[in-house]
């Protein structure tokens, strides 16, 4: 295995005392395309939240939790995070989310989140300007920047839609737009949370091929529910279960593994006992 780019050691995360991630270790190599799978509540999204800085350690009393919108608090107030997340010598657990992105880790959310009242091209331009100083943003973008935005548009096939407001896009197009917003930053690590959710079959195929093209130049970590998609495009798969790494290996071995089968089948037997 080549050099590790992301290294997670003994990561424990608990919400209000309830463990979500439990002594999790994960090493991802540079240029890898890594799939994270596991039943609902296994901790896949939480793992991405911790890496991207959305969930951060708050020890002691918590008066205000910035990761939660001010009204209608769906999350518990105390979040504990222990362990280490290393990315090229940086300790991500201590960094703000925007600093993590500038360090080279970009994240795509499960529900596509794009900026609805500006155009597709402007969405990508906003993402592309993430390292600009304030004053630089008062002047027109450089030719090189415009080319990069154009290239990102073409990679995801949205060139014809460049001047459409993002709010008018279809669900699949929004997913691609968000991927393009990541691509234009050429991040070293891309975290994709269920990137093909809500896509039609041909759209999935295109996304899968796109991911294969991107892997190598970028390190990609994907969570996915759709086992067909995983079988078709995955190389290395990590199975999470109850906040731990259950198995890790090539997709064929994982599929044949009796323990993995039991986790998935066992879940089917008792759907009522499954954590939401």
């Amino acid at each position: 295995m080549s050099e590790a780019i992301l290294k997670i050691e003994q990561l424990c995360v608990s919400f209000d005392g309830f463990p979500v991630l439990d002594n999790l270790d994960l090493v991802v190599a540079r240029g890898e395309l890594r799939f994270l799978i596991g039943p609902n509540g296994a901790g896949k999204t939480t793992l991405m939240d911790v890496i991207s800085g959305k969930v951060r350690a708050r020890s002691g009393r918590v008066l205000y939790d910035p990761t939660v919108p001010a009204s209608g608090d769906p999350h518990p107030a105390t979040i504990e995070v222990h362990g280490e997340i290393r990315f090229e010598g940086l300790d991500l657990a201590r960094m703000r989310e925007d600093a993590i992105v500038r360090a080279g880790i970009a994240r795509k959310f499960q529900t596509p989140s794009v900026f609805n009242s500006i155009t597709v091209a402007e969405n990508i331009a906003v993402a592309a300007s993430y390292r600009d100083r304030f004053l630089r943003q008062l002047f027109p973008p450089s030719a090189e920047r415009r080319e990069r935005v154009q290239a990102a548009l073409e990679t995801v096939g949205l060139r014809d839609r460049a001047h459409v407001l993002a709010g008018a896009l279809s669900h699949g197009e929004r997913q691609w737009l968000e991927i393009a917003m990541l691509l234009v930053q050429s991040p070293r690590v891309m975290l994709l949370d269920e990137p093909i959710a809500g896509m039609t079959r041909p759209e999935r195929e295109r996304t899968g091929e796109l991911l294969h093209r991107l892997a190598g130049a970028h390190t990609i970590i994907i969570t996915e529910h759709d086992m067909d998609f995983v079988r078709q495009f995955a190389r290395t798969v990590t199975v999470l279960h109850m906040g731990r790494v259950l198995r890790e290996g090539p997709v064929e071995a994982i599929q044949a593994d009796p323990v993995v089968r039991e986790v998935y089948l066992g879940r089917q037997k008792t759907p009522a006992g499954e954590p939401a």
Partner: protein
Amino acid sequence: MPNPAPSPAPRHPGTAAALLRALLPVLLIGVLLFLAPAVLSDFRQNLLAKFLCFAILAVGIDLLWGYTGVLSLGHGVWFGLGGYAMGMYLKMEDADGRLPDFMNWSGLTSVPWFWKPFEHPWFALPMALLGPGVAAFIVGFLIFRSRVKGAYFSIITQALALILSILFVGQQQYTGGTNGLTNFSTLFGFSLADRTTQDALYYITVSLLLLTMLFALWLTRAPLGSLLVAIRDDEDRVRFSGHNVTAVKALVFAISAALAGLAGALYVPQVGIISPANMGIVPSIEFVLLVAVGGRATITGAVLGAIIVSWARSTLSENYPDTWLYLFGALFIGSVLLFPAGIVGTWRALLRTRRLPLRIPRSPLRPQLDPQGAAHE
């Protein structure tokens, strides 16, 4: 793409035609305002000058609220600080080395240290902009850093307006108390009662308003403009795109406050008074309504809204001295309920769809008061 959704008219920012279209309203407003004194009485011209000060402030509020989605209900504070900076200079000029009149009455024997520098116009005039700007940046940075947003931010700014106006009323020996600063006679040696001085002030106000509009158009059409709208749409997503949202919001808050300070400084010599009544909660809310009626996220809308609403207010109060407040309130409720996009927003929608976007929204105030983006999964 098999998606024939009726997408809005494509926007191609940066092309010459688009630039011309954006500058046209500024040009039109400029020509009208420069010609206005020819048909207006001195009294009306003076009133219009006052409205134009509010228009400068409205552009600032529009940048903050219309574009960035941050609703400040305390802009009276920044307007007041700018006005007091100008008022202090006028007082010091009138006193000409002696003690300003109200300090005499309040029992002070010497000019307080923080009044001293205001005798120089080179200090007082920049302070009218920089004072509110720097103060707003610090206040904004602290508030935005703890990720207070939406209605909570609005409430804090409102509390700020209340606190500051109470403070100014209480510190009578330094601020002139409830009466504020008034009885000015000269500005840079020119008599304020003189017609030519007032004319000059009017044209200066018009010029500064046009400059403010150009400045705001530049900000919002630059890449920064999309970033501001992106923050309005989904602030958290902007953070996860690697932008320092706290700093950007604090800077926009500071720019907005500096424009309010400029408006205050222009207001004082033309109206002749600045008092805590100009900086409390009620004027602060009225400032926001100027933009709401004119049309959020349109610079022309903010200016037209400020002029039209102020004009309606003054006409109604002249003609219906007993009931004008009710009429004025009804005007607001009606326009915000029926035309949530404001005058210019409605006009643009009309041009685009050829249909009046008249509707009874189910809860029109919610998206306006709580412009934060949806939570992420």
